[in-house]
């Protein structure tokens, strides 16, 4: 697009000034002679990224991970991952002289005797929460807008793995100080492992280096936390970003935006500046949180003692949902032949359920594309309302998550609301099955109504708020057409096609072998698309506009009689018109 820059200031001129030979140029030449970077950079320096606030959510996750790396490296300089028993002799008098592990002692030293140590500890913990929270919200954004569809399914899987690894990273991290709260968490994790049939006790004894608690778990969790999982996270984040660059970012539909193009600002300078500036903002917010908001004050809990516990023990919030499942699970246990025990009450909610949920999460794009039969590439995002069943499915999953999360705090709810913990638990057992179904039905209907509303706007215009009175005395609201850009944006979406099994027969008219599978697929496709409202066709729009014109002509006879204010209806010249007032 050619833009006349003659009359404007320098900010928007992109005319390149011929480069004079310079020192920087010489360095660049030296490097390119050896690395050949110009070939790659020529395309990518001005790579276009579309702009929307929701594209920033993943960025929060990325930058909080960088904050985690930086603050984490600082903490490793003082933290001692050892369970050797020593007596604390540091600045915090309430614990002085008490026996505890070196891990706990070094955590207290970081908190009280290293300047900036507490700040870095708290920033590290807050950044971890931001990391996981922003990954979750980013995941929801991607799914609700259909950005997980072809060709981005694998990036969805990578993202899900990042969420899983991030959660494990969080658990291993908050277990390291070896305080009473984290020790209780590790104790429970030992119980989880022991519930696994056949191999449970072996896993527990191998991980703990013998009987719980032993003296191996902290050093082992430490190396998992600072090397193994961060290495995997780094590799997967790199893959996530490379695929993002390769696929080019999705964009919202709108004037000039199509499946074939990407419209936005160039990487250099605008995106580099915005993303770089945003890194400083995320870092700065984390620093403010670390400085002003207390988190995980381990000195108040004291060192771990397997015979002690605090009331209201809670894991970090992202571990809350499996913990909730654990709390509302009935106490089922099977004894086999009097020799073996299967602890369903632990194994199902804490080992099987999270594994199952993450598997479902990773399979969602593949399930959807199988049901819809849609094998096309998609680069334009969808509004959540335009995929009612998908939106409803995710809201159902969110409801399931939310109810389990509430169950993870059933004791807190009971105390704060003065309710019976038993009643809350029985209700949650019921709601965890019924709630998602209700949420699914409501969301789906809601989306479909919103689709109808969009069609109303396209066909009959928007509600102006101007009330017309007819000569007969009836009242109606005046509708005016929406702008062409808005109308185009509303129609820039696919027409859904319900999959049918018709034609799935071979040349002799015998049903194709996979027809039972196809029948299921047809039923699911009907559920997925069947009730959706399709955008109007060109003819329908034409007819509606004719109708509106006609209406308008009928109303034209009333011109000059319009009630005060109604003259501004967009169909008349209003030059020199004013509100008549006087009433």
């Amino acid at each position, binding site marked *: 697009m050619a833009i006349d820059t003659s009359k404007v200031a320098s900010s928007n001129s992109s005319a390149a000034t011929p480069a004079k030979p310079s020192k920087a140029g010489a360095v660049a030449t030296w490097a390119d002679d050896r690395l050949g970077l110009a070939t790659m950079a020529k395309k990518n320096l001005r790579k276009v990224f579309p702009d929307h606030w929701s594209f920033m959510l993943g960025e929060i996750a990325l930058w909080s991970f960088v904050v985690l790396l930086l603050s984490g490296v600082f903490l490793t300089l003082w933290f001692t991952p050892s369970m050797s028993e020593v007596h604390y002799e540091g600045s915090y008098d309430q614990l002085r002289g008490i026996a505890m592990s070196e891990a706990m002692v070094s955590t207290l030293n970081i908190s009280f005797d290293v300047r900036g140590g507490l700040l870095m500890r708290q920033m590290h913990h807050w950044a971890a929460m931001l990391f996981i929270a922003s990954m979750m919200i980013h995941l929801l954004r991607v799914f609700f807008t259909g950005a997980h569809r072809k060709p981005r399914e694998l990036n969805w899987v990578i993202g899900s793995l990042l969420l899983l690894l991030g959660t494990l990273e969080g658990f291993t991290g908050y277990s390291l100080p070896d305080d009473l709260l984290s020790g209780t968490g590790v104790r429970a994790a030992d119980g989880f492992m022991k519930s696994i049939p056949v191999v449970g006790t072996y896993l527990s004894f191998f991980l703990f280096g013998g009987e*719980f608690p032993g003296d191996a778990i902290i050093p082992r969790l430490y190396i998992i936390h600072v090397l193994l999982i961060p290495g995997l996270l780094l590799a997967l984040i790199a893959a996530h970003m490379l695929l993002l660059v390769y696929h080019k970012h999705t964009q919202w539909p709108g004037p000039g935006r199509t499946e074939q193009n990407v419209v936005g600002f160039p990487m250099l300078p605008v995106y580099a500046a915005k993303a770089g500036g945003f890194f400083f903002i995320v870092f700065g917010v984390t620093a403010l949180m670390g400085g002003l908001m207390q988190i995980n004050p381990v000195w108040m809990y004291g060192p771990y003692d*397997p015979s002690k516990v605090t009331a209201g023990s809670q894991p970090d919030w992202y571990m809350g949902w499996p913990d909730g499942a654990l709390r509302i699970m009935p106490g089922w246990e099977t004894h086999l032949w009097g020799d073996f025990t299967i602890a369903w009450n*632990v194994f199902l909610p804490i080992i099987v359920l999270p594994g199952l949920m993450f598997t479902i999460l990773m399979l969602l794009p593949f399930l959807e594309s199988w049901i819809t039969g849609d094998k096309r*590439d998609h680069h334009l995002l969808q509004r959540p309302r335009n995929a009612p069943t998908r939106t409803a499915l995710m809201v159902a999953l969110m409801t399931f998550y939310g109810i389990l999360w509430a169950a993870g705090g059933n004791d807190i709810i009971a105390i704060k609301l003065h309710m019976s913990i038993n009643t809350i638990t029985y209700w949650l057992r019921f709601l965890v099955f019924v709630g998602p179904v209700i949420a699914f039905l409501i969301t789906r209907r809601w989306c479909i109504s919103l689709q109808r509303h969009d069609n109303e706007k396209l066909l009959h215009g928007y509600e102006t708020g101007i009330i017309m009175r007819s000569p007969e005395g009836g009242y109606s609201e005046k509708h005016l057409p929406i702008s062409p850009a808005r109308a185009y944006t509303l129609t820039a979406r696919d027409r859904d096609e319900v999959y049918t099994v018709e034609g799935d027969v071979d040349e002799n008219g015998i049903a194709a072998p996979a027809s039972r599978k196809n029948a299921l697929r047809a039923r699911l496709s009907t559920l997925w698309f069947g009730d959706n409202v399709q955008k109007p066709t060109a003819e329908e729009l034409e007819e509606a506009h004719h109708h509106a014109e006609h209406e308008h002509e009928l109303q034209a006879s009333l011109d000059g009689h319009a009630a005060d204010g109604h003259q501004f209806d967009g169909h008349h010249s209003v030059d020199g018109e004013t509100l008549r007032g006087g009433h």
Partner: protein
Amino acid sequence: MSGHDNLPVQVEEPIDNPGLPEHHWRPTDVDPKAEKRAERQVAALFGLSAVCAVLFVVAYFALEVGDNHDTVLGMGASNVALGASLGGALLLIGVGIIQWARKLMADVELTEQRHPAASSDEDRALTVAALQAGLEESGIARRPLVRNSLLGAVAILGAPAVVLLRDLGPTNAQVSDAETGAGLEHTVWKKGMRVVRDVVGTPIRPSDVEIGDLFNAEPAAIFETDENGQPLIEGVPLQVAKSKAAVVLIRMDPADNTPARGRENWSVDGILCYSKICTHVGCPISLNERKTHHLLCPCHQSTFDLADAGRVIFGPAARALPQLPIAVDSEGYIVAQSDFTEPVGPSFWERDS
């Protein structure tokens, strides 16, 4: 119809794409004054950031850590000052850069064409050809003996990898020892071992325990010392012992208690002794409801009825709390009659009761 899999990419549009909207100039593009103002704003933000960074250094050296750890917001003044100044320094740089990008950098949207993620058919064919040529030259298909022996050798490499992990820890069977109380089936409790108060380690007479009282107690073994006053059990063995042997003593009106069969003489004057380790996932249980003799685990709210052999009356636990049979020794102190008769703590596969 297989044609469904290949829907046209081009979507039928009832309204023609009106094309990119017209670009609008910003005040900073057309008004040199506005441009100068924005420039000054950005520079001021960067300047303020530098001030914050200096304040950080000042706070680092000026404010003590250690003693005054809760003077401001429950945290030390140092922490609050360092966090606020670092946060300010970083935020102001970020805000400044973004202000620069929004007001002064070009705001013309560009359009780039997308390319299919897939390689071209030609590239695919060339890749397949190259792969086939390479595989052909390697002879991997023609020499099954070589191929299969290599696959076998690589597969068997898994064995050293797995075996190497064997010494991560001993198994339960290897550590299990009734004498020392090691292993999942045993604790340090023994016949005649005194039940002593938690923390202080003093023995308990039945008369010390009032009706309705709940004592957190431990076996005397974990407080025993040698002739030099050094503890006999410390470090890891101490933690292991505590994680299984912690108990609660509760006294109730004998009329309230319904002992299980065979446990009629496990109590002393209405005093009962139960494992403190939850049978769910192993948290220490501590919340006693005095009137009902119910004991609640704070981790997942399993509730046990101590007047009914520790039966689970609510929550996710599946097994009753193990009971420790107690008696009184010749000096009148409460002692264990034996170790627990079943494993304490969370269930595990090999558990046979």
